[in-house]
């Protein structure tokens, strides 16, 4: 039994789909610094690991704990569909719906900056510029250095 659903979100409409996909990865990497569990799958009702739904590939998922039927959070899966941010997950119980909303809000706080970060890296790579990405656990920041 599964209640996995996917829904598109209007955040960052107009951002190039490739940038949005890379931005999602950066956002998940950043949120991991805050202690949020990051996986490339969500759990369904029975505890099966799911990496796609209705042709939407999950790029990364936040907060996945375990089987939804066991009253665990299955995870907020993130993908791109028709160029839009798409949320994938099984949020059966009310508390799981609330948890999903809370994590989505945390994601949307950082996603704009994450897409900027990803876009800047893509531009630099396309231009053949030297790039270096570092993670600062102490300050909880990601840093990209681009050199000519």
């Amino acid at each position, binding site marked *: 039994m599964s209640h996995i659903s996917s829904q598109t979100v209007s955040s960052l409409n107009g*951002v*190039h789909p490739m*940038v949005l996909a890379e931005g999602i990865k950066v956002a998940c990497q950043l949120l991991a610094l805050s202690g949020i569990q990051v996986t490339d799958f969500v759990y369904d009702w029975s505890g099966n690991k799911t990496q796609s739904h209705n042709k939407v590939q999950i790029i990364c998922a936040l907060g996945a704990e375990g089987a939804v039927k066991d009253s665990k959070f299955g995870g907020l899966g993130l993908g791109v569909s028709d160029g839009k941010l798409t949320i994938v997950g099984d949020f059966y119980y009310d508390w799981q719906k609330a948890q999903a909303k809370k994590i989505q809000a945390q994601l949307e*706080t950082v996603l704009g900056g994450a897409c*900027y970060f990803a*876009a800047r890296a893509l531009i630099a790579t396309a231009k053949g510029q030297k790039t270096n990405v570092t993670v600062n656990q102490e300050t909880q920041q990601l840093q*990209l250095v681009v050199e*000519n």
Partner: protein
Amino acid sequence: MAKKETITLSTDGAINSEFSGYTDKSCFNAAADISKQLEDLGILTQVNDVKIKDLSTQDTKNCAIQTQKIERK
């Protein structure tokens, strides 16, 4: 001094972009060029969210002119 741009992303989603190794005017041009390329990818930058500073002169004015806005919703 090598021309470099350092982009820092914080957990509140704020972006700080600093240019070093540029003269006043070339920093302005570099920031404008990057802003335009970002805009082509759908990324607009907001003056409150992006600070561009020329470390060679410590002058924030010239490079700050070209910031636009990061759309979050």
